[in-house]
C-alpha cells in the first residue's frame, strides 16, 4: 500500500514523481561511479579518487534545484553528484579519472575529480580549497552586472569554511546582495580533523547571520529536504534578494581520498554506525513505500547504471592519453 504521507512530502517539496526518480537515478549513478573509481585505484588503473559515498542526496538534490542550462556551479572534489545533474556524462567523468586527453575538465592536467567544464557552466577548481568561495561571488557579480537572472552555487566542505576565503567570499556577496548560494557539505571530517576542531561552533550555517543573510541547516541525507532548502535559496538569489548559506549535514562513508586510511582516526564502530545512515537505501525505501518505485524498476535502473559505468570505464581506458609534446602548451592564452 502506498504511503500517502510520502506523496504529500514530495509535493510539498515542489517535486513530482519523475523528479524523484531522476534524483534517485543520479544518486545511484554517483554511487556507482564513486565505488568503481575506488576499485580502479585499488587495481592501480586509476591513480587517485575522492569518494562521494554518503553525500549523494545532498549533491544531487541541491544541483537539481538549479536551472541546469543557465545556472553556474563552482564545485569541489566531492561534487560528483552535482556534476552529473549539471550534465557531465559518465564517459566524461571516466576520461577525467583516467587523465585522458579528451577529458573536458582539464585534458589530464589536473588530478581526478578536479572538476571544470565550461560548456556546462562548471567553473574549474584547483586543490587549494576555499579559493572557490570568493570566486563564486565574482561569477555571480558578473551575472548581476550584466543583468542576467543566473544563479551561481558553490560547493565546499566544512573544513574549507575555516579558510579566510570563506569569510571574504561571503562578506562580499552579502554586501552586494549577489545571486549566489553557498552550499556547505558538513560531513564532520576535514581529512582526519573533526568539525569540533574546526570551530567551537560546529553549525556552519549560523555564520551567515554575521554576513547579513540567511543560513539554514538541513538533513543532507534527505534529498527532499535538501531540494526544498536549496530551491528556496536559489529562488531568493534569482529574485535579487541575495545569497544564502545552506549547510547539509552529511556523512563520509569512505576515507578522505584513495591516499587516506580513515581507520587511523575513526573507529570501525563509528563507520559501521554511519553506514546505517546511507542516504541511498533510505531514499529507495521512501520511494518504494510511496509507490514511486518498485523492486523490479529499481533493479532495472541499477543494472542500467552499472552498465553505463562499465561502458564508460572501457571507453575511457581505451581513449588516448595526452600527447607529451603538448605539456608546454597553454601556459598563456594567445
Amino acid at each position, binding site marked *: 500500500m502506498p504511503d500517502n504521507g510520502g506523496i504529500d512530502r514530495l509535493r510539498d517539496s515542489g517535486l513530482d514523481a519523475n523528479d524523484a526518480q531522476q534524483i534517485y537515478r543520479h544518486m545511484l549513478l554517483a554511487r556507482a561511479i564513486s565505488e568503481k573509481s575506488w576499485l580502479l585505484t585499488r587495481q592501480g588503473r586509476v591513480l587517485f579518487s575522492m569518494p562521494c559515498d554518503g553525500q549523494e542526496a545532498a549533491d544531487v538534490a541541491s544541483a537539481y534545484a538549479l536551472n541546469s542550462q543557465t545556472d553556474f556551479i563552482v564545485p569541489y572534489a566531492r561534487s560528483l553528484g552535482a556534476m552529473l545533474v549539471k550534465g557531465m556524462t559518465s564517459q566524461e567523468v571516466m576520461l577525467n579519472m583516467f587523465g585522458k586527453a579528451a577529458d573536458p575538465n582539464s585534458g589530464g592536467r589536473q588530478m581526478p575529480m578536479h572538476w571544470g567544464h565550461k560548456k556546462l557552466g562548471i567553473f574549474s577548481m584547483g586543490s587549494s580549497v576555499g579559493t572557490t568561495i570568493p*570566486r563564486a561571488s565574482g561569477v555571480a557579480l558578473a551575472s548581476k552586472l550584466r543583468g542576467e537572472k543566473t544563479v551561481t552555487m558553490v560547493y565546499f566542505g566544512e573544513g574549507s569554511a575555516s579558510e579566510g*576565503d570563506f569569510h571574504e567570499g561571503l562578506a562580499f556577496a552579502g554586501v552586494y546582495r549577489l545571486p549566489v548560494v553557498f552550499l556547505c557539505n558538513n560531513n564532520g571530517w576535514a581529512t582526519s580533523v573533526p568539525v569540533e576542531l574546526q570551530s567551537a561552533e560546529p553549525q556552519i550555517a549560523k555564520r551567515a547571520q554575521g554576513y547579513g543573510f540567511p543560513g539554514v541547516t538541513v538533513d543532507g541525507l534527505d534529498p527532499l529536504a535538501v531540494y526544498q532548502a536549496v530551491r528556496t535559496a536559489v529562488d531568493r538569489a534569482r529574485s535579487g534578494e541575495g545569497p544564502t548559506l545552506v549547510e547539509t549535514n552529511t556523512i563520509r562513508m569512505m576515507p578522505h581520498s584513495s591516499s587516506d586510511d580513515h581507520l587511523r582516526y575513526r573507529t570501525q564502530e563509528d563507520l559501521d554506525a554511519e553506514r546505517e545512515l546511507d542516504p541511498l537505501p533510505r531514499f529507495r525505501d521512501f520511494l518504494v513505500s510511496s509507490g514511486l518505485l518498485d523492486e523490479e524498476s529499481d533493479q532495472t535502473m541499477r543494472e542500467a547504471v552499472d552498465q553505463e559505468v562499465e561502458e564508460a570505464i572501457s571507453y575511457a581506458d581505451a581513449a588516448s592519453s595526452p600527447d607529451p609534446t603538448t605539456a608546454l602548451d597553454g*601556459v598563456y592564452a594567445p
Partner: protein
Amino acid sequence: MSEMRLIEAVRDGLREELAANADVFLIGQDIGVNGGVFRVTEGLIEEFGPNRVIDSPLAESGMVGVAIGAAMNGLRPVVEIQFADFIFPAFNQVVSEAARMYYRTNGEYSVPLVIRAPYGGGVRGGLYHSQSVEAYFAHVPGLKVVVPSSPYDAKGLLKAAIRDDNPVLFFEHKLSYNTVQGEVPEGDYTVPIGEAVVRREGQQLSLISYGLSVHHCLEAAETLSAEGISCEVVDLRTVRPLDTATLLESVRKTGRACIVHEDNLTGGVGGEVAAIIAKDAFEYLDAPVQRVAAPDVPSFPYSPTLEDALLPGTPDIVWAARQLAAY
C-alpha cells in the same frame, strides 16, 4: 599630446578602457568616492557609477578571488591593491588560481585580469608601504608582470594589460606618480607587453632596469657621460616575460652589464637577467655582470636616516658603473 604626470596617465588609461568596453570594471579598497588613497581613480565613480567602480571590503584575497570569478564569467576586472605590500593575502588566488587557470583547464577558461598596485620606497612609508614585490610574481608561469617607468608607457601598457586575456600584475612606483612627467598622446594607443626599449644609446656599458630606477639610470648615465663613460639604458618595462632579445643586443654591443632595481638583491629580477646574459652573451662580456639593488633587509625602515642608507639611487649606479668601466 599633452604633458602629464604618471598618475594622470594611469587614470587616463583606466578612463578610456572603461569608456570603450562595458566589460571593464574596477574593484579595490577606497577607489570609489575617495578616488583611491593615491587618487588614481579620482572622478571615475562619478563618471562610470558604482557598478563599474566597486569599493571592496578590506579583503585582498576576497577582492582578487571575486575578480577572478568575474573574469572567468566574461568581464575584465582591474583590481587596485592599495599598496603592493598588502598583496600577500591574495598571493594564493593569484598564483594557485589566476596564473594556472588557462593551463589547468587545457585552454577552456582564461582569466583576463589586471591587478594594479603602487610599489616602492622613498616616501617614508616604512616596512609595509615601501616594498617591491615583482620578483615573487615574475617567478610564476602564467602571469605577466609589468612595471612602467614613464607616463606614456603607463597608459599604453595598462591599456594593453586590460585587453590581454591573461592575468597581468601592474606595478606603479608610488614616488613616480607625481614626480615623473612626460608626453602622453590623447586617445587610444597601446604599448605591447613584453617589449623592452632602449632609453639612451651608449657604447661602453648597459644599465638594465625598470620602473622608477630607470630614471636613476638615466641620471647616472648623464653624470658618467661627463666622465667619458658612455652608458646605454635599457628599460625592460615588462619583467615577465622578459625581452631577452633587446637586453642581449645591448650587452653584446657594450660588453658590460649592470642591472638596477629597487627590490632587494637576492632572488630579484636582476639575478634572472644576469643568468640570461651569462648564458647568451658570455663571449661578448668584458667584465662580470653587476647588480645594484637594495640590500637584503626586510624592506625600507621608516626613519629617513635609515631609509636613505638603504635606497639604491643614482650615486650607487654611478659608483658601480665606474667599477665596471674600469674593469
